């Protein structure tokens, strides 16, 4: 009995009793799994979007810097002979990232009406289909030979 008492009680209070907090009391700042980092990220997002969820000049500059850096990586990759065997997938990946960044943020497609995205993406799919068709024709029918 004493063992059970020791297990479930401490100084007369139950071990498993969750302390009640006042509902009016605000949650401590940064009390979540990623602590201060998540709070800082949120603050940065608020800064670059002027707190409106829309882009601000700082936001556009951030996108432009990323685009510039990706271009630098592309040119560097091209110059490194050891990485030449991965050139085609790497360039396709980098150009896709740049493409998405410009379309989503500079062209505002991320924030704009979904109808515009639907029109553009549909045409994009047709464009990629035409592109792929040429390549398939080239591969199987010797186009240009």
């Amino acid at each position, binding site marked *: 009995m004493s063992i059970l008492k020791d297990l479930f009680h401490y100084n007369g209070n139950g071990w498993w009793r969750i302390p009640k907090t006042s509902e009016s009391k605000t949650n401590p700042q940064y009390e979540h799994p990623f602590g201060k980092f998540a709070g800082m990220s949120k603050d940065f997002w608020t800064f670059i979007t002027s707190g409106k969820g829309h*882009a601000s000049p700082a936001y556009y500059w951030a996108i432009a810097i990323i685009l510039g850096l990706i*271009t630098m990586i592309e040119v560097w990759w091209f110059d490194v002979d050891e990485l030449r065997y991965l050139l085609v997938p790497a360039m396709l990946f980098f150009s896709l990232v740049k493409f998405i960044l410009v379309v989503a943020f*500079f*062209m505002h497609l991320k924030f704009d009406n979904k109808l*515009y995205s639907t*029109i553009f993406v549909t045409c994009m799919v047709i*464009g990629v289909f035409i*592109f792929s068709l040429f390549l398939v024709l080239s591969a199987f029918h010797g186009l240009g030979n």
Partner: protein
Amino acid sequence: MSNQDVTIQHGEEIKNSTGVSNKKLLMWAFLGSDVMFFGTFIGTFMAYRNKSLNGPYPSDTLDIPITSISTFVLLMSSLGVVLALHYLKESKMVLAKLWLILVIIMGMIFMGFQVYEFSHFAHIGMTPQANLFGSTFFTLTSLHGAHVSLGIIWLIFLLYNEYKGNLTSENAIDLELAGLYWHFVDIVWIIIFALLYLITAGDGVPPGGLPWIAGQ
């Protein structure tokens, strides 16, 4: 919904039953058609890649460092357009004009690089008639250059209107449409730079091809 419906999107008042700006919808439809247009030309270029049996070949002609600079200039011009639009919407006219002028200058620098590149190619014997690579390369890059030139003319026209006081935050949609077009030209170049330049630049003499000597 009736035709009297009014929707507010990005500060713009839209008075129609679709709830979206007709001008912007038309521009996106045009850009969609242009995607397919460029898709065919890029597809043709890739299909004929490494099929030229006589020179000059991509490894003899393409100059990546110079094209990288022009690519960077065009990317930064896209930043200029969004900043010009941002400041125009906030009625900061001086900054809007400044960025618009910078975009026009950057567009002209890009075209200058293209003119230099084309004249250099012609000088070493790479013309549209030279081989399959020349034909497909010049067709695609010239079409892109024509788009950039049209964009520059459009932006100059908008700048003139801004000086005249006809382009204000009220009708910022006009600059937004030109901006969409300009960004599109930019994304097409992103693809061209990767496929036509970076991936193709290492292509030398294909099997069965004749070696090429400069000035031949």
